[in-house]
């Protein structure tokens, strides 16, 4: 698959980082458009054919959160948020209002490209709208039709809740899911924001699929944000 068709919008006010991101993307074969601020980003989104937006949260003119809100009014384009380390709250907030993923500064080119690939994969899946019957990551396999989970070809017994959680993660493999999003998906909107039940559910699930729950191979914890199912 050639990357040349994909165009990525990089919104970042620092020239150094912009250059570094663009260079990394271009050397991997992506097309790259840059914007220095929120206004430039919005202009570019209207005038160019853009597949993924990489958005720094600390922009000089607008708050990154407002940019996401504005974009989400008319576009479903994948947005990857770039933030500093002390912006956890904003990060989780950005994800909840529609960003697809995030990167914490400083990040490496490898991390950046991995995130972009995950976003692209979800973009195509959405576009194709094709129903998968099963999925496999490493030794972990899920069968959507039979509601079964296999680890190294051995069937694993799951409670209904654990299965719902795992299938939710599988459908968003590689993407970070915020705790509030997961809670909403599993228990419904009225449940509130009590993370304790989710932590317990996750602990049970991990004990079934991970050899060492504190050194997970499949489900990673993004502290302060949520969970991510590794897909590579």
């Amino acid at each position, binding site marked *: 698959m050639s990357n040349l068709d994909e165009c990525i919008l990089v919104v970042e006010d620092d020239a*150094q980082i912009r250059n570094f991101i663009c260079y990394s993307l271009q050397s991997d074969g992506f097309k790259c458009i840059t914007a220095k601020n929120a206004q430039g980003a919005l202009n570019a989104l209207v005038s160019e054919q853009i597949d993924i937006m990489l958005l720094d949260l600390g922009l000089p003119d607008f708050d990154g959160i407002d940019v996401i809100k504005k974009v989400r009014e008319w576009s479903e384009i994948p947005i990857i948020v770039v933030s500093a380390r002390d912006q956890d709250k904003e990060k989780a907030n950005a994800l909840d209002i529609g960003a697809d993923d995030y990167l914490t500064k400083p990040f490496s080119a490898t991390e950046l490209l991995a995130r972009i690939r995950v976003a692209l994969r979800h973009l195509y899946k959405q576009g194709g709208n094709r129903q998968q019957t099963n999925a496999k990551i490493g030794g972990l396999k899920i069968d959507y039709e039979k509601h079964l989970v296999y680890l190294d070809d051995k069937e694993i017994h799951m409670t209904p809740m654990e299965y719902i959680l795992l299938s939710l993660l599988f459908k968003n493999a590689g993407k970070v899911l915020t705790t509030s999003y997961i809670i909403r998906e599993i228990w419904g909107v009225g449940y509130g924001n009590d993370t304790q039940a989710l932590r317990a559910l996750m602990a049970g699930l991990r004990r079934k699929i991970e050899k060492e*729950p504190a050194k997970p191979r499949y489900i990673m914890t993004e502290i302060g944000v949520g969970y991510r199912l590794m897909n590579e």
Partner: protein
Amino acid sequence: MMYLKDNRIVSIISNFLKMASLLFLATVTGYIFKMIEFPETTIVLAYLLGVLITARFSKGYLYGVLASVLSIFVYNFFFTEPYYTLAVNDPSYFVTFTVMMITSLLTSTLTSHAKKSATVAQEKESETKALYMLTNHLTDASNMQDIAVTATNIISAVINCNAACLCFDENEIPEKTFVQQISSEKQISRETKNTEEIKHKTEVSQKGYYIDAEFYNWLIYGRDSILGIIRIPSDSAVTMTESKTRLLCAMIESTALAMDRLLSAQQRIKYQEETVQERYRGNLLRAISHDLRTPLSGIMGTSEMIIDMSNQSDPRYDLAKQIHEDADWLHSLVENILSLTRLQDGKLTLNKQFEAVEEVVGGAVSHITQRSPEYEITIKIPNELLLVPMDAKLIEQVLINLLDNAIKHTLPGNEISVTVVHDQDTNCAVFSVADRGEGILAEDLPNIFKMFYTTRAKHADAQHGIGLGLPICDAIVKAHGGTISAQNRKDGLGAEFIFTLPMEVKSK
């Protein structure tokens, strides 16, 4: 003392003379009455009047009583038959004498008593006035010197002497000079001699005052220390009546109150200034750190790209790698400074939630293994799920800092472990990060959590820290209501850091 005696004799003589002349006057009036043949009772009344006036204008009960007794004899002597003797012909005169005696005794004591009460009331009033004046003036004082000047002035006026006031500084050391009143208008500043001796004497004094060559010194007791002394010249001090002494003590008390109030106001202003300064410094640090962080991300990314582009045999590979490592180190330093400014601001609001220990430990360990993949970190946690109330992001930072430390002091391949147990007795989660490094020097142990403390033990090419990592851990754990400690391992080489977190959310 001579002065005192003279004074008393003068007063006795004057009172005596008053009494004698009044009796004489009464006798003269008696004669006049007798000559114009007024009844005898008028003469008795003249004597009674004399006794009354004596009681009114002399001091104490003595002269009134004496005048009563004497007037009987004088009356007997001059106006009863046989005249000019103390003998009496008519026994009915004894009734007259007795009635006269009782009446004059009663009136004289009543008069003396009324007079005494009036004097006491007057004294009380002047005391209250003096105290009021003192407190009133002291409220206007804006510094210790002002208070000393005002107190000296008013106390001198009330006690009628040349009083002085010596202030102590915040360490209870007497100031170098003290003020003394030398006339009703003028005060001078005198040098304090024997500062050491004064300090010593105030410390051992138990009665609230002590005596030296020139002064009687009353101590001014503040809320928690001695604030100064009021010095009354010895000659005035010995003649002070009890009520004056009481008044002086009351005035010293007001002075102490005023001084205390001033000191606490000053303290408050000082604290306020310090807080403002602290906040200013924190803001500055944070601004700098923020601005450092962005270019550092750029440097790290760019140097990483150069690493990717160059061959491992290329010298540029190593150079870029060095740049990347240094930038990484600088970046974690900046992050630490940021955390610290936030912690010290007191604005740190813990976002406490029940978190699974395995997730937090796992997060910290995976962070470290990404940076230093050559290290193997063992994790020992209970099999059952342990949910502990904490701010996960901050506790992760604690674990990362501790693991960072462990890696700095341990060679790859040696054991580094994170252990968590649930201590049922104290209902705490006990976290331990242990390594197999060279351990902690005994002299470092007590200081290891102090800010900017760095060890003197240096091994070759060790990257030096600036002593922020552990103080941050300390601050975070304490903010959670836990404890943190460091020790050397008992089963061989290596250091161990242990911190606890309470399992219950304490309701405040």
